[in-house]
C-alpha cells in the first residue's frame, strides 16, 4: 500500500504530580515556568501507535507537531530520539492564554498547511487540563472523522484503518478511511525507549531560536546536516484570523481559582495498637456500619 504521512500532536506539560505554591499566576493561568516540564504521558502512547503504523506501512513518514514556548522543542527532540522523522514547533506570544478552542484552531490551521497527510494522532488528554477536547476539536476544524480512545491498531489496509477503542464499559473495533484523526488512550502500549543511534543523530537538533545562542563551530555542522533543523513556525507561517487566537479567541474564561483547602472535620485519632483497632471495629459492628 502507499506510504502514509503521519502527524503526531504532542504537548509539553507541567508535571502536575509535583505542584508548588507558585504554580498559578494572578490571572488564573498556569505559571508553567515554575514547574518541571514533561512529555504529556498519553501523547507518548500516541507516538507509539504512530510509530507502529509507520513500521507497518513501508516508506511512511512521521512528523511531530507541538505548540508551546521555545522550550517545548524538547518534546520534538524526544520524538526524534524515538523514531519521528521531522518536527515542527508552533510558537508565538499570540497563542498565550489559549483555551482548547483557540488551541485547536491554531493546530488545525497548522496541520492544514502540512497537507497532504493521512493520519493525525494525539493523546486522549493532557495531564494539566484533563479536558480531552483538543483532539476532537482539531478533527472538527479539519472536517476529519475522529476515533477517540484508541488502544490498538488492529489492521491497516489501503485506505482503511481498524482501531480498537477503550470505552467506559468495554471495547469497540471501528474502521475508518483516511484521512482520520485518532486520539490515544493510556491503555495503549507504552512508548518505546529512545534509540541510541537516533539519540546520537538528533541530540543537536535545534530550532532557529535555539541556534542563535550557539557557537560558530556548531553553525558549520548545522549547515551541513539539514536534518538537525527543527522547524519553528509562528503566526506568520500559517493562515489565521488573529482574533481567534490566544486569550481573546478563547470563549472560556477563568472566573475564579480556589486553592484546595480541606474543610477540617473532627476526626478521631487512632494508632494501630490492638486496643484502638478493637475499639474501632467494635463500634462499627455495634452501629451496623459493618456486619
Amino acid at each position: 500500500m502507499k506510504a502514509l504521512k503521519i502527524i503526531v500532536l504532542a504537548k509539553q506539560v507541567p508535571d502536575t504530580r509535583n505542584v508548588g505554591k507558585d504554580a498559578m499566576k494572578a490571572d488564573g493561568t498556569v505559571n508553567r515556568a515554575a514547574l518541571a516540564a514533561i512529555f504529556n504521558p498519553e501523547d507518548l502512547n500516541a507516538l507509539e501507535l504512530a510509530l507502529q503504523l509507520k513500521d507497518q506501512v513501508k516508506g511512511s513518514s512521521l512528523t511531530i507537531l507541538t505548540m508551546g514556548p521555545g522550550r517545548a522543542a524538547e518534546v520534538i527532540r524526544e520524538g526524534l530520539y524515538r523514531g519521528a522523522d521531522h518536527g515542527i514547533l508552533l510558537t508565538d506570544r499570540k497563542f498565550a492564554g489559549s483555551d482548547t478552542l483557540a488551541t485547536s484552531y491554531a493546530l488545525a490551521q497548522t496541520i492544514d498547511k502540512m497537507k497532504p497527510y493521512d493520519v493525525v494522532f494525539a493523546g486522549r488528554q493532557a495531564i494539566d487540563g484533563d479536558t480531552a477536547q483538543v483532539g476532537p476539536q482539531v478533527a472538527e476544524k479539519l472536517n476529519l472523522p475522529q476515533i477517540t480512545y484508541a488502544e490498538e491498531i488492529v489492521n491497516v489496509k489501503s485506505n482503511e484503518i481498524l482501531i480498537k477503542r477503550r470505552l467506559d464499559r468495554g471495547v469497540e473495533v471501528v474502521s475508518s478511511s483516511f484521512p482520520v484523526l485518532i486520539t490515544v488512550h493510556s491503555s495503549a502500549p507504552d512508548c518505546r525507549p529512545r534509540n541510541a543511534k537516533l539519540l546520537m543523530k538528533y541530540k543537536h537538533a535545534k530550532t532557529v531560536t535555539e541556534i542563535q545562542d550557539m557557537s560558530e563551530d556548531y553553525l558549520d555542522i548545522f549547515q551541513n546536516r539539514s536534518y538537525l533543523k527543527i522547524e519553528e513556525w509562528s503566526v506568520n507561517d500559517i493562515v489565521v484570523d488573529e482574533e481567534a487566537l490566544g486569550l481573546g479567541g478563547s470563549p472560556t474564561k477563568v472566573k475564579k481559582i480556589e486553592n484546595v483547602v480541606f474543610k477540617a472535620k473532627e476526626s478521631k485519632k487512632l494508632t494501630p495498637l490492638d486496643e484502638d483497632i478493637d475499639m474501632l471495629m467494635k463500634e462499627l459492628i455495634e452501629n451496623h456500619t459493618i456486619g
Partner: protein
Amino acid sequence: MNNIFVYCEIEDREIADVSLELLTKGKSLAKQLACKLEVIVLGSDLNGIENKLYKYGADVVHVGDDKRLSPYLTLPHSKVIVDLFTKEKPQVGLFGATSIGRDLAPRIASAMKCGLTADCTSLEIGEHYEKKTDTKYENLLYQIRPAFGGNIVATIINPETRPQLATVREGVMKMEVFDEAHKGELKKINVDELFDDADFVVKVIERHIENKKVNIKGAGIIVAGGYGVGSKENFKLLYDLAEVLGAEVGASRAAVDAGFAEHERQIGQTGVTVRPKLYIACGISGQIQHRAGMTESSMVISINTDEKAPINQIADYVITGDIAVTIPKMIKYYKKNSK
C-alpha cells in the same frame, strides 16, 4: 428559545444514569433561569422514551430515531445536535462526561465556536463583571471543576458565546424523579434529511459491552488503596479485608497509574464517584480529584503512615500507621466478633 438542553445518552437500550442526573440538575437550573428544560435523544427503537424523560422534568423531548444512530457514532450524532442547537439557540448544553459525551461535546463546541468545560463537579448560576469592557453579565453558568492535577478548583464561565457547554461526571449529581405526572412535548427530528455518506466513514465493526465486573458504584463498603499501598502484592491485603467485610476494592488514580489496581476500580474525578456508607482509605493521600469521587461517603476511615495526609481532614477516624499492621488486626477482630 434559549432553554437548557441535555443530551440523553442511550446505553444498552437504557437511558444512562448520568443523563437522568443531568435532567435533575438541569431542571433546577431551568427553574432558576425561568426557562424550559429540553432533552435530545438519538438512537433507534426509541418509541415511548419521552415518557420516562418527562417525569425527570423534561419539558420538550427531541427524538431522532434512526437505525444509523445506534450504535453511537460521532459524526451523525454531532451533526443532528449542531443542527438542532443552531435552530433552537440553547443557553446551556449539558453532556455526561462519558466515553460518548467527551467524544461528542468538543466536536459540537468546535462547530459552534463556543466554550466547553470538561468534567464539572458542580454547576451554578451567577453573574460576572468584566472590568476591561465595563460589562456586566447576568445568569451565567458557573462551571466548576478541579483542575491542574487536582491542586485547584476552577470556576469557568463563557460570557460571550452560546450555548454554554459542559460535561459532567457520572454520579456527581443527584438523580431524582421531578414529578411522576409531569408531561412535556415530543418533537421528532427528521434526521434523514441531514445525513450524507461522509457522516458514516467510521464504522463499528464489533463491540463488547462489558458490564463492569466490579461494582464499586453500588458498593456499601469500599476498601480503597492509594499509591501509599506500595505494590500490587500489598493490594492483596485490601482484597482480604474487602472479602471479610463484603466490600469492594477501589483505588486512587495514582495507584491505578502505578499498576497496583485495574482502571475500572478508579475512584475520583477521572474514575467513578461513590457514596458508600463506609470508605476505608488505605495509603491514599487524598488529592481533590480523588476526594471529588468519595467525599459523600457516610463514614471515612483513613489508614496512613503520614499523619498530615490531606485525606485525614475529611476522615472520621484516622489511624496513623502501616496498613500491613492495621488491616490484619481489623480482619482478626471482625472474624472473631461478628456472627
